[in-house]
């Protein structure tokens, strides 16, 4: 199980965490990975200054912009899930 956590605190919300979540949900469904990727949210990861929404994949930190979600998904999440 790959554990993906998206920050849904105020700063990340303004940087597009909703779009990131929606995109991830779309991609997870599209690749039928619902039983291998667990998506969750958390209020603030304490890295509000980063250029992008805070996301962790199995504990590893990434700052992701909504338009770059696809990269995180193919480069990191897909590889782990396979």
């Amino acid at each position, binding site marked *: 199980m790959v554990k993906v956590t998206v920050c849904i605190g*105020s700063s990340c*919300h303004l940087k597009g965490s909703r779009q990131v*979540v929606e995109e991830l949900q779309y991609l997870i469904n599209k690749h039928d990975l619902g039983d291998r990727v667990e*998506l*969750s*949210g*958390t209020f603030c990861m304490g890295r*509000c200054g980063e250029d992008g929404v805070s996301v962790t994949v199995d504990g590893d930190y990434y700052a992701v912009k909504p338009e770059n979600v696809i990269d995180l998904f193919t480069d990191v999440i897909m590889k782990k899930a396979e």
Partner: protein
Amino acid sequence: MDDIKKRRKFDTKVQYLQYKALREVARGAWNGDLLDKVLDIPNVIIPGNLPTMRCCVYKERAIMAERVKLAMGGDRTNPNVIEVIDIACDDCPTGGYEVTNACRGCLAHRCEDVCRKNAISFDHQQKAHIDKNLCVECGQCAKVCPYSAIVSRRRPCENSCKVKAISMNENKAASINNDKCTSCGACVYQCPFGAIIDKSFILDVIDMIKKSENNTKYKMYAVVAPSISSQFTYAKLGQVVTGILKLGFFNVVEAALGADMVAYKEAAELAEKGFLTSSCCPAFVDYIRKQFPELAEHISANLSPAATIAKYIKETSSPCKVVFIGPCTAKKMEFQKPEVRPYIDSVITFEELQALYDSRDIDIETLEESALDNASYFGRIFARSGGITDAVRQALKEQNITNFDYKPVTCDGIEACRTALLKKSKGVLDANFIEGMACVDGCIGGAGCLTHGEKNKREVDAYGRLAMEKSISDAIGIYNLARAEVPAANEEED
């Protein structure tokens, strides 16, 4: 900052007095020397030997000592969060309606005509007199007198208490009937002598912050009520948020996101059950349970917005502690209820937040701004009367519930709530949703607000329009992430 400028942050000097007690208690708690210094606090706040408020400085200090006690949590054996300081109560007159010497002895005798109890008679000079054995204090005579010669000599506390929980004890001091009191705090704000005060939990909050060891042991979350937009107007909202973080909180979340969640669920619940009352206002809910128990089954099953968001925070971001910061004294009662206790760890008011800032010498006007944006316009306008009504209408629309004929009644203040509930209990209410707010104007009229004013509603609406998310569905789009990382709260209860 000088004394006068600080005082202007509050509506009344009474609030300012209690604020000083809170600030000094908080200072002691941060420094860890409260127990050594607690007996000196009255002398620190009231120095010298010339009285400025009461008959002598010794009485002033004795009352201040009581304020300090309340700032430290008050009488733990009394379950009510609202308490009377007996020695501060000035034993105001209690005569009820009286004819003053402004009575001109006119010929019209409107007062007599309007009195349904025949309680008014006239002496040989045509001056009116009220027979206290007959008078029921309806006040009609005072309304019709062309000279405003009839006045009510009811105590401000009794006057403010529309649920009639305040009476006089054997010493003529105000006394609160806990079986009727809903902890709304109206008397706290109205007593001109500051003799009724809400207990404070600031010591618990400071203790939680200290024990979090800079948010390493657990994270401290502040949930702020949307009415905050009408408060701290001397600074920017983003600075208020930074100030909360400077106090040692890890993150600040809008209670309004909880309101979005509540509106969404409440709309579906309403369409399913056919009749509901809102459950957001703890004083309103308490009032139904105490005065209209037969209607309690119609109270929405939703937790309040604050408890809803707190539950969500505990489910997504544990280990953590959640402190609600708002305008509401009744919230201090609500969070102790078994269904809310697992989610909200403590409650403080905006007044107390100001005291906490100053106890740490945090001048929020000088701080940079932090973001606060979780909710939609509709979640944010819960802070004012009519907000829930609008949000539920919107949530019905967003869920495409079109086969339900929404007929809301918006009750602004506990008297309006009473009228609607009475009608409902008699089966003559032409509505299927009661929005109940115990405070007039809604939460922005709450007793724990620093200031109360005409502009506050506009401030809340303006704040609502600033929200990035425009619809309820968008704001709660993240809600299905609530799959808990850690089993629901309470796991690290001490």
